[in-house]
C-alpha cells in the first residue's frame, strides 16, 4: 500500500521501512509491483526473525549460565556473541544422517513442514504501524490454523524416525499440544470478544488509546491479565519449552521426536521451535500487550517496531527466566494442569469478558470482574494442590 508522505521526523522514523520498501518497489515494472512488495516483506521477516533466533540462543545460554552461577558461552567473538555463527557452521558441516529404517520422504519433509508452518504464522503479525504482511479478516484463525500444522510435523518426525524414543516423544508432544491448544484458543477468544474482530491489525488498533498516561491494553483489565497469563502458559506448553519440555526431556527420552535428526535438519527443528515461540509470543503481544503501541502516552514518538521488539525480547527474557527456575512437570501433572486448571479458568474468563462488556464503565465492573477471576483461581488452585504434601525432603543416605 502506498501511503501519504510522512510529516514529522518521528513519523518518518516510524515508517522508515515502509517508505524504503515502497521506494524499492517503485523501481520495478508495474505488473510485478505487488508481488515484489510482498517478496521484500517476506524476506525481511525471514531475515529479522532468523537473526532474532540466533541472538536468542546466545542470550538464553548466557542467561541460564548466570542463573546457574556460571558464565555462558564467552569464547567465540566478543562476549561470545559470535557463538550462533559457530553453531551454524557446525550444524551445516555435520554429517547428514538418515537412519536406514527411517521413512525417507516423511523424515526429510518433517523439519521443512515445521519451519514453513512456523514462518507462515508471521503473515498476520503486525510488527509495527502498517507493518503487517497481510491484514486477513480472519487473522487469528489463520494463526491457529498454521500452528496446528506444526503438530502434524511433530508427528511426522517422530513416526518416520523408527525410534521408540522419537515416537514416544511425538506422542507426548501431540498430546500436550492438543491439550494446551484448547486454553490457548479460549484465552484468545476473550480478546476477540472484546475487540469484536479476528483481524490482528484491528485488535491492535482497538488498544491504541490512552487514559491519562496508561494505554488501553487488554492486559490492564482483570480478564485480560488472567487471559494473558493463561495464554503465555499455553504458549510455553505449545512450544515444548521448560517446564513443559516432556516431549524432549533429555533424561527420559533423549531428545524426543528429533532424536534421530542431526546436522542441518536438527538445526531446522531448533529454528522452527524458536520461530514458533516468537510467533506465539508475538500473538500474545498483539492480543494483550497492545501490539506495537507505546506503553505510556508520552513515549509515542518512539518508532512502533521498536516497541514490538522490546516487548518480544522482554517475553523471551521471561521465558529464559522460567526455564532457569522451574523443574520439568510430570505427565499427569501436565495433563491435570491443562484440563483441571487452565481449561476451567479459560472458560470462566470467557464469562468474565461478557460481564465486563455488559457492565457500565466504573469501579463496579472492576470489582466484579476481579472477584470473578481471583476466586476461581484460588479455588481451582486449591483443588489442584489437594493431596499434595509439601514438606522438607529427608535424604536417607546423605549426611
Amino acid at each position, binding site marked *: 500500500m502506498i501511503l501519504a508522505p510522512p510529516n514529522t521526523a518521528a513519523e518518518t522514523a516510524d515508517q522508515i521501512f515502509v517508505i524504503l520498501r515502497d521506494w524499492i518497489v517503485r523501481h520495478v515494472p508495474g505488473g510485478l509491483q505487488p508481488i515484489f512488495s510482498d517478496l521484500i516483506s517476506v524476506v525481511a521477516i525471514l531475515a529479522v526473525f532468523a537473526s532474532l533466533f540466533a541472538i536468542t540462543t546466545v542470550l538464553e545460554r548466557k542467561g541460564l549460565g548466570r542463573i546457574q552461577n556460571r558464565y555462558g558461552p564467552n569464547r567465540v567473538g566478543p562476549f561470545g556473541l559470535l557463538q550462533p555463527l559457530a553453531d551454524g557452521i557446525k550444524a551445516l558441516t555435520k554429517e547428514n544422517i538418515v537412519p536406514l529404517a527411517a521413512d525417507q520422504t516423511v523424515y526429510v519433509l518433517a523439519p521443512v513442514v515445521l519451519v514453513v508452518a512456523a514462518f507462515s504464522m508471521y503473515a498476520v503479525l503486525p510488527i509495527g504501524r502498517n507493518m503487517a504482511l497481510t491484514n486477513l479478516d480472519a487473522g487469528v484463525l*489463520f494463526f491457529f490454523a498454521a500452528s496446528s*500444522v506444526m503438530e*502434524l510435523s511433530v508427528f511426522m518426525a517422530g513416526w518416520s524416525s523408527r525410534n521408540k524414543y522419537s515416537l514416544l516423544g511425538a506422542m507426548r508432544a501431540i498430546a500436550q499440544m492438543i491439550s494446551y491448544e484448547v486454553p490457548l484458543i479460549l484465552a484468545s477468544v476473550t480478546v476477540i470478544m472484546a475487540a469484536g474482530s479476528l483481524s490482528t491489525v484491528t485488535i491492535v488498533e482497538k488498544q491504541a488509546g490512552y487514559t491519562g498516561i496508561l494505554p488501553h491494553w487488554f492486559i490492564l483489565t482483570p480478564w485480560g491479565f488472567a487471559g494473558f497469563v493463561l495464554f503465555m502458559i499455553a504458549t510455553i506448553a505449545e512450544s515444548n519449552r521448560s517446564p513443559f519440555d516432556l516431549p524432549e526431556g533429555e533424561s527420559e527420552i533423549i531428545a524426543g521426536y528429533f532424536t534421530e535428526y542431526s546436522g542441518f535438519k536438527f538445526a531446522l527443528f531448533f529454528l522452527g521451535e524458536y520461530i514458533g515461540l516468537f510467533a506465539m509470543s508475538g500473538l500474545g503481544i498483539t492480543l494483550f500487550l497492545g501490539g506495537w503501541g507505546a506503553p505510556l502516552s508520552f513515549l509515542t514518538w518512539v518508532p512502533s517496531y521498536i516497541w514490538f521488539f522490546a516487548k518480544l525480547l522482554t517475553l523471551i527474557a521471561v521465558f529464559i527466566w522460567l526455564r532457569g527456575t522451574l523443574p520439568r512437570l510430570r505427565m499427569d501433572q501436565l495433563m491435570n494442569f491443562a484440563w483441571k486448571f487452565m481449561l476451567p479458568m479459560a472458560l470462566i474468563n470467557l464469562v468474565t469478558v461478557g460481564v465486563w462488556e455488559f457492565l457500565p464503565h466504573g469501579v463496579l465492573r472492576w470489582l466484579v470482574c476481579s472477584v470473578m477471576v481471583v476466586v476461581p483461581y484460588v479455588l481451582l488452585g486449591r483443588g489442584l494442590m489437594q493431596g499434595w504434601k509439601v514438606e522438607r525432603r529427608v535424604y536417607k543416605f546423605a549426611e
Partner: protein
Amino acid sequence: MLFTIFAILTLAGAVAAISLRNLVHSVLALTLAFAGLAAVYLLLGAQFIGLAQILVYIGAVAILIVFAILLIREAEPASPSMVVSSWVGSVVAVLVIFGTMAWAIERSAITQRATGSQAEASMQQIGNALMLRFALPLEIIGLLLTAALIGAVTIALREKGEGR
C-alpha cells in the same frame, strides 16, 4: 489456473489416501487433500471455511486418525490383499455413481445460469449469522459435539475386567 493446480493436488492426495498400503502414509496424503481443499475454499472466497478446514481437519481429525492408527498398531497390515473380497462390484457401483453425477452436472441447467456473484463473507457477517439466524443450530451442534465427546470416551474406555 490456480484452481486446476489445487484441484489436482486435492485429487492426488485423495487417491493416495485410499490407495497407499501404509496407513500413516495414507493419512499424510489425506492431509494433503485437506490442504488442497482448503486452498480451493480460499480461492472461492470462503476465508473462514478454508482456515477452519485446516484447523479442524489437519489439526484435529488427521491427528486423531494418526493416534488411532498408532493405538491399534496396524500401520502396515501384514495381509496380502488390501481390498475386500467383493471389490469388483464396488468398483462398478462407484463408476456408475460417478457417471450419473457427471452426467447430471453436465446436463444441469443450474450450472449455466450461475450468477457468479462476487459477494465475499466477512467475519462480521458470519458472526452475525451464527449468533442470530443460526443460533439454534449452533447450540445443537454444541450439544452434539459434547455428546460425541462423551460417547467417544465411553466407547473407547477399557471395559471393566478387561485389563491386560
